[in-house]
């Protein structure tokens, strides 16, 4: 354990690693908190769809020589509202619409990359993430936005619970559910854009889904699920990035593997507990 902490501290002496760790921890925290609500609302796929939109937007931004994050942020937020509207509208099936938007964005992104810089390591980095991609201004933007997400989440925690558990009741008793749904989508969009460059477009949604699902194996109240998700997410990110530093594995993928291991561990405990109860 002390070895792990020593290595973790050692990583901070590298500027790029320190940046990656700070942004990574904040994004992990935001993603895990929002994830609880998204998973329970059956909106998990929206996170996945948004990350693909983010990939497309980033590729186009690079092609146009614009700052990737400032371009993709508004695009992904717009896509989040669009996806939310679609999934609330029962006439169009939500999952099909998400698949449509995901693949469309991927295709546009890949074409704009191949027309300009050609299919190179850029594509690889967008897909699977790179810790070297953070500029100083990215870090500042990430820290500020993460703190905004956290404050809004804590401030509206009770409303988010009510809207997640029973939207009809909340609406019937006078809560403006549309606003809170939009806020959840808005915060999710921000979180995804922030985390995407490090985790990769294909892997970022795991930060949202895994901690919540893992916690739900064992925790029985909304509050404990939320807190446990946050802890699991922070822990898995720390372990993942340390492993990637030690063994030169891709960061995003290492974090996901750490999440998978914890999920299996929790699932086993649940399994044993239920066996015992019978």
């Amino acid at each position, binding site marked *: 354990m002390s070895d792990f902490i020593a290595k973790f501290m050692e990583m901070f002496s590298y500027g790029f690693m320190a940046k990656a760790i700070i942004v990574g921890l904040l994004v992990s925290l935001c993603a895990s908190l929002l994830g609880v609500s998204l998973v329970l609302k059956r909106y998990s796929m929206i996170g996945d769809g948004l990350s693909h939109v983010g990939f497309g937007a980033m590729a186009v931004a690079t092609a146009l020589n614009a700052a990737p994050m400032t371009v993709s942020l508004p695009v992904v937020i717009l896509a989040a509202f669009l996806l939310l509207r679609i999934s609330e509208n029962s006439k169009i099936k939500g999952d099909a619409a998400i698949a449509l938007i995901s693949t469309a964005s991927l295709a546009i992104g890949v074409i704009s990359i191949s027309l300009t810089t050609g299919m190179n390591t850029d594509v690889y980095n967008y897909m699977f993430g790179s810790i070297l991609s953070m500029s100083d201004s990215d870090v500042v933007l990430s820290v500020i936005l993460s703190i905004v997400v956290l404050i809004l989440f804590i401030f509206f925690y009770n409303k988010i619970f009510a809207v997640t558990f*029973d939207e009809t009741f909340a609406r019937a008793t006078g809560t403006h559910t549309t606003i809170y749904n939009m806020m959840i989508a808005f915060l999710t969009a921000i979180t995804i854009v922030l985390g995407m460059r490090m985790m990769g477009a294909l892997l970022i949604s795991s930060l949202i889904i895994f901690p919540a699902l893992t916690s739900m194996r064992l925790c029985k109240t909304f509050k404990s699920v939320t807190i446990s998700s946050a802890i699991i997410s922070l822990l898995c990110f720390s372990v993942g990035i340390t492993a990637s530093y030690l063994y030169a594995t891709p960061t995003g993928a290492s974090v996901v593997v750490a999440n998978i291991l914890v999920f299996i561990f929790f699932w086993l405990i649940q399994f044993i507990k239920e066996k015992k109860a019978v």
Partner: protein
Amino acid sequence: MPLITCRDVSFAYEGNTVVEELNFSVDSGDYLCVVGENGSGKSTLIKGLLGLKSPSKGKISMDENLKSNEIGYLPQQTAAQKDFPASAYEIVISGRLSTRGIRPFYTKEDKQIVEKNIALLGIDNLRNRCYRELSGGQQQRVLLARALCATKKLLLLDEPTAGLDPMVTVELYNQIEHINKETGLTIIMVSHDIESSLKYSSHILQLKKQQLFFGTTDDYKQSDEVNRFWEVSR
């Protein structure tokens, strides 16, 4: 002045009229059962009374002292709730949210009201239990406590006994009657169960695309409609 008055009210989905020409009023302290077959417009009417759906024709007028965030509602359960990780207490207190407005956290007063309703429904032993591990009847009592936290005046119940076994159903009906008698809360309940509706309610509204009957339960028992409805439900 009645609590709710419906005058020539119709509801439609995309131009197709579901139910039309509703004329009835509910006074404070009434126990109204809305009965009718599937698709007769009962749930649509409830949505209308809650303000989730506006009438295509006519007017629903509420007493000016009844604000829209003062209506308690017991909805039919959704599939997503069945495996929701939340304690009974968390769910009950979420009923207080509508009175909070923009303020984010619960106050002492909220917690006192929650305690009162937990005691009223006898679910003190369930407060820290996980909602998904409760039985159907226990879940309904938790949701009823939440609905009571949201209101002092009017409670709308959408088939509260659906899927419950007969013993638990009777218990729940007794509890609802107790609430109606003790606190003077007005109750509007959608029900399939004509027998219990006749037993507990003070007024009956029967729907079948339009209003077949509205009046006191005693009058309903004397009317022809009741016999016809008995025939159908058998």
